[in-house]
């Protein structure tokens, strides 16, 4: 076709040049890249905290970190990874870049607000880093009162304000996405022709705008209690410490879905592509995202079964928690069924899909143990919980993020990376991850509580295994960073559609022009129409 002439156009990356043109850009693709760079930095910071934790826990007694320092390190690991990496990870990078393109739009509905969200994120993140430099904070990422509001002498207020400010970035992004999906779809792009990645980001955005204000108010109340001694959470002046947990988890449980729903969206794209087949049960996958987003708001009390909350409240939270497992199971079965009678191509995206499925399965299923009230009494606040949520948020979330990043990298950067290296890295990450976190299920059932700087000797074996796994995992992540960066410099130029994928994003040049499309596309087919999908254009790289 006209592909040759299309490739002549300057891409969004080069038009125009200069730092100012990037820092003042309104292009959703450039903003996505700004986010990608920022979250990578925070992932590295959060990862080095994790390395310190794992190194300290090799032996039962405290070694090179004092108890106070250890407490600060795990707090910062959580705060950085959750608020500055996981929550923005997929929506603000891949979502920002591809959601408008996938629905045939030239940009998000509010490009300036999009840039503003990034600046807000940077301000919030900088404030939190300032708290680190000023001496850190030691409340745990959960900021439980009254420890955080009256007992801790660390920089709680600064860190809380950082989280508060960053919240606005999430709210604005969610708002922008929702308006974009409603108002900016190209002619013919009906709701049920939208790629599932768009559905997932839409559902995520709902959670962001409904939940984030609550956490913002909650952390602000902590700051107020510390500064003004308002009796909100401190029982000595008439407050209720458990009220904090209600407010906190009202946001933070749905926040788990902010971290995993977009990942599920990515996996839906990847599964269809590697199977070269229409996704099985499209509408069930789409609606299960919404179901998860909505039901996810009603389960927060499952974090509080042992706080002395009313048994009957506990019952309601437990049954709804069990219910929310169902849509996740539905998704998993649909992805599996999609591969049935597919034409499964063994490119690197397949490896990320398989890795995601393995880890997400374990993460999801172990949630059932924690949702069953009588069992949660034993497991609550042990390493079983630590393992469970890492399987979901890192196993599922990060695996999907990396899968998406690899899948879309050629489109975003216009370069190909080495397929064999990507396959090796995906396997390293998978094995490293399991070695790190699987032993934690066992040591958790044995009773090792989380956030322990020192622990009884019988738990040591499992901790040594974990640390060994973390080393492999770290090596895997580092390898990915290296070959992706290398690909920008030396990688072969990417064709328009290296995976032979369907969707508007694969019908435009790599990397796209600033306005994405030369003329507004008209959509005439459903998503994942792999029967009529183009063969991949792979003139530049070839595996084998």
């Amino acid at each position, binding site marked *: 076709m006209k592909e040759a002439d299309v490739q002549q156009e300057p891409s969004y990356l080069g038009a125009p040049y200069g730092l100012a043109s990037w820092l003042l850009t309104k292009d959703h693709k450039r903003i996505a890249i700004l986010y990608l760079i920022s979250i990578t930095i925070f992932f590295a910071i959060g990862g080095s905290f994790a390395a310190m934790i794992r190194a300290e826990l090799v032996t039962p007694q405290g070694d090179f970190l004092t108890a106070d320092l250890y407490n600060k390190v795990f707090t910062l690991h959580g705060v950085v990874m959750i608020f500055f990496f996981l929550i923005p990870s997929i929506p603000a990078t891949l979502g920002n870049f591809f959601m408008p393109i996938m629905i045939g739009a030239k940009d998000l509905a509010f490009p300036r607000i999009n840039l503003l969200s990034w600046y807000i994120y940077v301000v919030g993140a900088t404030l939190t880093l300032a708290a680190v430099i000023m001496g850190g904070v030691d409340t745990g990422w959960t900021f439980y009162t009254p*420890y955080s509001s009256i007992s801790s002498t660390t920089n709680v207020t600064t860190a809380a304000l950082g989280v508060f400010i960053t919240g606005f970035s999430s709210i604005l992004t969610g708002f922008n996405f929702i308006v974009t999906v409603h108002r900016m779809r190209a002619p013919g792009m009906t709701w049920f022709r939208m790629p599932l990645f768009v559905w997932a980001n839409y559902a995520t955005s709902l959670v962001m705008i409904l939940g984030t204000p609550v956490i913002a108010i909650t952390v602000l109340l902590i700051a107020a209690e510390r500064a003004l001694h308002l009796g909100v959470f401190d029982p000595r002046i008439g407050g209720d410490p458990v009220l904090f947990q209600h407010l906190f988890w009202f946001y933070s449980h749905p926040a788990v879905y902010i971290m995993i729903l977009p990942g599920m969206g990515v996996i839906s794209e990847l599964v269809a592509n590697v199977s070269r087949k*229409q996704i099985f049960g499209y509408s069930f996958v789409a609606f299960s995202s919404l179901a998860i987003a909505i039901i996810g708001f009603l389960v927060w009390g499952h974090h509080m079964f042992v706080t002395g909350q009313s048994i009957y409240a506990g019952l309601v939270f437990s049954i709804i928690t069990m219910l929310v497992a169902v849509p996740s199971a539905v998704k998993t079965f649909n992805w599996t069924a999609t591969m049935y*009678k597919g034409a499964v191509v063994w490119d690197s995206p397949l490896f990320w899909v398989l890795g995601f499925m393995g880890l997400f*399965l374990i993460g999801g299923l172990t949630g*059932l143990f924690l949702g069953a009230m009588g069992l949660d009494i034993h497991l609550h*606040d042990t390493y079983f919980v630590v393992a469970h949520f890492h399987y979901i948020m890192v196993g599922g979330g990060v695996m999907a993020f990396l899968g998406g990043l690899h899948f879309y990298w050629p489109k975003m950067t216009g370069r190909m990376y080495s397929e064999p290296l990507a396959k090796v890295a995906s396997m390293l990450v998978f094995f490293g991850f399991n070695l790190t976190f699987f032993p934690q299920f066992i040591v958790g059932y044995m009773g090792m509580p989380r956030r322990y700087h020192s622990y009884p000797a019988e738990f040591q074996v499992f901790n040594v295994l974990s640390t060994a796994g973390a080393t492999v995992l770290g090596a895997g992540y580092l390898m990915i960073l290296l070959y992706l960066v290398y690909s920008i410099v030396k990688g072969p130029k990417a064709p328009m559609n290296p995976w032979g994928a369907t969707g508007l994003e694969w019908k435009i040049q790599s990397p796209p022009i600033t306005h994405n499309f030369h003329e507004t596309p008209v959509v005439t087919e459903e998503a994942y129409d792999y029967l009529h999908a183009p063969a991949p254009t792979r003139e530049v790289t070839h595996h084998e």
Partner: protein
Amino acid sequence: MSSTLPLFPPSASTVAGDVDALFFFILAVSAFFAVLVSVLILYFTFKFKGKHGEAGADIHGSLTLELIWTGIPFVLAMVMFVWGAQLFFTLAKPPADAMDVFVVGKQWMWKVQHPEGVREINELHVPIGRPVRLTLGSEDVIHDFYIPAFRVKMDVVPGRLTTMWFTATKTGEYHIFCSQYCGTKHSGMIGTVVAMQPEDYEAWLAGGRSTGSAVQNGERLFTELSCITCHKADSSGRGPTLAGVFGSTVQLNDGRKVLADENYLRESIMSPQAKVVQGFQPIMPTFQGLVSEENLLQLIAYVKTLKPAEPASAPVKK
């Protein structure tokens, strides 16, 4: 030290076996689905290996399958819910004949007081075969009292009392962990449960230095803090008589009715204005800051023993 690698915690309470049974049930269900899905995915990956440019079969979905794989997980999840809830009810309702032990958590130690007055720190001696009910209070932040071998844990929350119970079944020493993060020495806030034969427990109690039973101490405090000047045995004081108040339903002056449980007694002493008894003036001073968490538990233990003077002629309250 045993040479084999332990993979499972000791089971040393009456509920431990039930908790483990639920654990293994969910484990079996999970393992089944994990293996099923993994095998299917890998099988499809190999069986339907394709080439670039090929397309998979034209399948869009199946309502029957969707219903099946919505229905089966739903039913299984409900079974887990009901089982878990039953267990939770058992764990939440201590048997009536349970022996009362008070535990106070503070950064970073556990203070234990036995009914007969023997105290210990970071240790809890209990007889096997007899239900033990712990009443937990905190002097500062939230802690959590966790005994993995008994499969029980409960948060220890400042400003209120929480309870948990267990019946130890095997003699031995087991870990106590604080499992709610509480600051610098959170991981040092640990201790040992010593489960003993009942006769050994009695001997241990007899050998311990008792500073008076909880009730005796409570009675002394009741006089020292001049509660007695307002709360008389009959209704002649400025405050209501406390005889028989525990476990009764109290009518408040704002129209509400509350059950007088331990937390109500606690609140009545620490923030008397929060709930004012009908027919009385809010003149009771707060004892916030004047009584420690341990004294509070003793006062409550004493108030619980106050019974109406002539039970025979006491009118049935309607």
